[in-house]
Structures are given as C-alpha cells and as structure tokens.
C-alpha cells in the first residue's frame, strides 16, 4: 500500500466516522420526538408539535411538557452517560468487557440510594440521593480497580466485578430484610428495576448537573485513552499520568452513574452494548469512540423506554428490566467471542 493509498483509506474512514456520528445524532433527535409522542394518552404528532411551540390544550401541554419531556431528557442524558462510561472504562482498561454494570457501579449506587430510601433519611427528590449514590459508585469502582490491580486480565476484572456487584446486591437485600415497613420493601423492589416513568423536572435538575460533570471529565481524557492503547509505559512516556487518569475516570463514571441511578434506579448494560455497536463503524480508537458511544447509549435507552410504553402488558414493564433482558445475552455473546482470551487467563 502506497502512502497515497494509506492517506485515502484514512480519509474514507474519517468520512465514515463523521457520517455515522451525524446519522446517530439525527437518530437521537428522531427518537426524542418519538418519545414525546408516545404514552398512555394518545396524542397526534401534530398535537405534540403544537405543544412544543407553545400551543395546544392545557391537558396536552402538561402531558407533553411536564410528564414526557423530563422523561425524554433523562433518557437521553442517562443513555449518553452510560454509553460514555462504558467506552471510557473500556478505553482505560483496554478491555472490551469493561462496563459500569459489570463492575457493580450501578448496583453500588443503588445500594447507597436504597439506604437513604429505607431509612427515610431524606426526600427522594433531594440532593442527598445522588450524593450518596455517587459516593457508593465511586467506592465500588475504586475498590474494583484496587483489587484487580493495574494490568488485570479479563478474568480477574470480571470476577472482581461479579464479587462487588453481588456484595452490593446482598447489602441491598439486607437493607430490605431489616426494613419493618412492607411498603418500603415494595418501593425499593420497584425502584431497583430501573424506570424513567413519571419523572419530573425536579429529577432532571437532580441528575443533570452530575451527569454533565461526569461527561465533561470523561470526554476531557480522550487523548489519554488513545495514548493508553500503546500500553501503559508508552502512555506514560507520552506524558499521561496513568494514576491520575484512573482516578479521573473513576470520578467521572461515579458522578455519571451515581447521578443517573439516583433518579431512575439501576439501568444496566447500556454501557456495555453501546461501545460494541460503535466499534465496527468507528474503529478501535478509544478517543474517537467516546462521542458515538454516548449517542448510541442515548438511542438505545430511548428505544428501550419507548418500547416499554408500547409493548402491551397488564402491568408496565420497567425499562431497567428490558435493558438487562437484552444486555445479558449480549454479554454472553461477548464472552463467547472472548473465549480464547478468557481461557488464556485461566492458563
């Protein structure tokens, strides 16, 4: 391959990347509109657009603006941060199986939030919930990376992640067990399933600042992820402080996931799936993967959240259940694909 051919190939790849990113962004916009148009009360697309431009009946206005809009905003924000967190963790660990939910971050954040709910420490619409959830998420990811060590193989990471998420799950179960009020137990059980239903702008205000801060931190480390693909020592020689990078990524993931979990409960596997969907299109550069993964995450969560409103069922399906039902088989498929690497880890 000549130099010209190489440059041409690079240009084609770049064009494809931009095209894919733009198409994804358009898809997210389209899904956002679809989400605003979906709900138990049938509103025509015309009525929805009318409301968005300030018209419509007061019932339609309240339904679209105060019920569907906050829900949609949260779906976009939370889907994005989950996709972004997955891509960032995969970049940091140079490991395609890394994701917040496999590392127990949402489960730990949920434990933190459940503590607040179970003991009635604060209003569920106060900042106490995201703050405690973030602290718990930070603790879990920090513990995981500390236990697994710097150059941990797949197997150790997954085992440590499994242990931490099981522990968070057990701690949550203990809190439910100790709670004497049956309503509290029911509330927690529902909450753990993960849902965007009936959220309001109060919830948006709760989660968005943390999600935005987490996203900013993760996006700012893009070039460091790229340097890391060359190996930790090479990255260090390029001026990347790997210890600081780890801490920043943990903080970013904890802020994003903690903030998200605090208002929706646990929504898993978006962070695992989104970067994988983007890799064949975007390529393996972790820096370039960040934004498309965020967009893919937003699109995935929007689709899932629209689906739970459309799928006919006697009781409403929780979106967290749906993402896990789809996400776990995907995880199994990934394990199958990585079988050789995993086998190597054992030997």
């Amino acid at each position, binding site marked *: 391959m000549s130099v010209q051919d190489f440059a041409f190939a690079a240009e084609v790849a770049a064009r494809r990347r931009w095209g894919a990113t733009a198409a994804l962004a358009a898809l997210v916009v389209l899904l956002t509109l679809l989400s605003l148009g979906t*709900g*138990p*009360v049938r509103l025509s697309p015309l009525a929805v657009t009318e409301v968005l431009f300030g018209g419509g009946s007061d*019932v339609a206005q*309240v*339904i679209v603006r*105060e*019920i569907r809009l906050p829900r949609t905003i949260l779906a976009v924000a939370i889907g994005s941060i989950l996709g972004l967190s997955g891509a960032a963790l995969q970049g940091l660990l140079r490991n395609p199986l890394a994701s917040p939910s496999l590392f127990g971050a949402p489960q730990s954040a949920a434990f933190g939030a459940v503590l607040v*709910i179970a003991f*009635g420490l604060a*209003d*569920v*619409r106060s900042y106490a919930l995201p703050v405690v959830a973030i602290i718990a998420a930070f603790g879990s990811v920090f513990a995981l990376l500390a236990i697994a060590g710097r150059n941990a193989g797949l197997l150790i990471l997954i085992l440590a992640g499994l242990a931490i998420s099981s522990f968070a799950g057990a701690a949550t179960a203990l809190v439910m067990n100790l709670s004497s009020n049956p*309503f*509290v137990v*029911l*509330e*927690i059980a*529902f*909450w753990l399933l993960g849902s965007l*239903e*009936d959220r*309001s*702008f*109060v919830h948006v205000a709760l989660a968005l600042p943390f999600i935005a801060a987490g996203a900013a931190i993760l996006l700012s480390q893009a070039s460091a992820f790229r340097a890391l693909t060359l190996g930790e020592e090479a990255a260090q020689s390029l001026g990347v402080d790997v210890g600081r990078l780890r801490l920043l990524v943990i903080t970013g993931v904890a802020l994003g996931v903690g903030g998200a979990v605090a208002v929706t409960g646990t929504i898993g596997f978006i962070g695992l799936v989104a970067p994988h969907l983007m890799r064949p299109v975007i390529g393996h550069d972790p820096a370039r993967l960040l934004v498309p993964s965020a967009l893919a995450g937003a699109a995935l969560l929007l689709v899932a959240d629209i689906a739970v409103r459309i799928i006919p069922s*006697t*009781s*409403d399906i929780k979106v967290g259940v749906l993402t896990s039902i789809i996400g776990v088989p995907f995880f199994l498929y990934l394990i199958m694909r990585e079988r050789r690497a995993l086998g190597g880890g054992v030997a």
Partner: protein
Amino acid sequence: MLEERSGWGLFPQYDLRRYPHPNPPPQAGEGAQRRRSRHFASRCIVFALSILLSAMLPSIASAAGPRIVSMNVCSDQLVLSLADSDQILGLSRFARDAWQSWAADKAQRYPTLSGGAEDVLVLKPDIVVVSLFDKRATRDLLKAQGLNLVEFTVPRTLEEVREQIHAMGDVLQHLDRAQAEIARLDAAIARARAAASDRHYRVLPLERRGFVAGDDSLINSLLREVGLTNAAGELGFHAGGFASLEAIIKLRPDFILVAEAGDRAEDDGRAFLLHPALQRFYPPDKRIVLPERLTVCGGVMLADALDRLTEELQRVTR
C-alpha cells in the same frame, strides 16, 4: 397464695408491663359500675390487701368474657374497641404503629406479640383472632395445638364491616357494644351523605405509585354508600391497577383521594402523588385526605373515616 403475693411484690413493674393490669383504671364509657366501685373500694384498703385483691381479680374477670389474643392489626382494632381491657391478653406487633393502627394509643397498655406461635401458646387464650392474611403455618400450628381460632377476612363492603363488628361483639360477648358501634357507623354514613349532597362528585382514590383500588374494594363501597362516584371505573380499573399520570390528567376527576397531605416524598411511590403535573391540577384544595389508619382496616374506625370524609368534602367543596 403467699407465693403469688411475693411474686407480685418482687417484680411488680415487670409483671405489669408484660401482662395487662389485672385491675386497670376504669375508662370513660366502659366498664361496669360494679367493677368501678370494687376498684374504688380496693383503693381504700391498705396496700397489702390491694395487692392481694389484684392478684385474685384475673380469675374473677375471666368469668366475665373470654380472654383473647389478636394476631392481626385489623382485628386488634375491633378487639380494642369492643373488649373489656382484662379480656385482652395480647395484640399484634403492629398494634402500636400509629401509621396503620387507628387505636395505637389504646394499644400501648397491652402487650404485643411476636407474630409467631410461641408466645400465643404461653398466654393460653380462650380465643385467638386471626386474619386469613396471617401466616398460614402459624395458624395451622395454633389450631393443631387445640387453640380456638376465629378467622376474619378483609371486608370489602360496608355491609361486611357491619357483619364483622357484630361477629367480633359475639366472640367477645359484648354484642351491645358492637350494636352501638354499628349505629355510630350508620350515623357517620348519613352525615357524609349529607355532605356529598347528591352532587355525585367524581373522586379518584389514588394510592402510592398511582395504584387505584378496584370495584370490590372497601374504599369503593365507602364512596358509593356516601353518594360519590369512583372515577376509577372510567379508567377501566375494575380489578384495580396502576393508573398512569397521563391518564389521570386526561380523566380530570373532580377530586383525588389520598392518604397524606404533606409534600415530602419519602419514596418514589409517594413522589408520584407529588408530581408537578398532578400538583398543577390537584393542589391541596382538590385533594381529599383520608389517613391510611382510618381506611386500611374495615372496622369501627370507618365511622371516623366517614366523619373525616365529611369534613374534607366540606373543605374542598367550599
């Protein structure tokens, strides 16, 4: 008798706390004149003699009516309002929980049970009142031990409530009190019906998370009896279910009926009722508030519930 006396003398507080006072102070409106005067007399005698009398009284009192243990918070309410205090050997562990127990204050004076079979067996009651919702294994064990179990269901209509009050009066051998309570209930119904004044307001009873009770619920019977329309029917919830915020806002019932008035959301279920969209159409003066402890059981407290409903109707329709 001497041993018994020394027992009382050694651990009087202990015994008083664990078991009902054998000779409690007379309550206003209950207790026979005969026992009141006896109590008064016992106060006049010397201290040692009064102890002796207290120790003897349980056997006298048990002749008056069966001694009873209640294992369910709802039967607790009936027992507390119909029984003589020396008939009550133990109440359910939720009896003192003011959130669900209407007679929580009264229940403070009686021992509460663990919920298992052991302490019931030790108390050796004449009758154990249980709900069909209590643990099956515990009920079966008590039956197998030869205890006399009376099972109560959860009433779904006001007629069933009347029947249960009557049945409990029968069990406790205080039918007169039961009749009085039923009369009190009927009077409260009449007052609430007058307050609703046949205007057939559409009321949507809304529980946490938007749960709407179905047609065969007590709250539905209550609303119908009073002359209000349960808007849940228009939502298509004949068997009960979760209503969506959107559907409620589209339906626009005249009032929503909730259990709490405050604006603190201790969990998501409560946050549903405080969603800004719902608050916009249902500010406090569109919310009829009936505390949970007045409606969670069907019993004598329904008279209070209905009086509260009367007050609330007067407030919101002003």
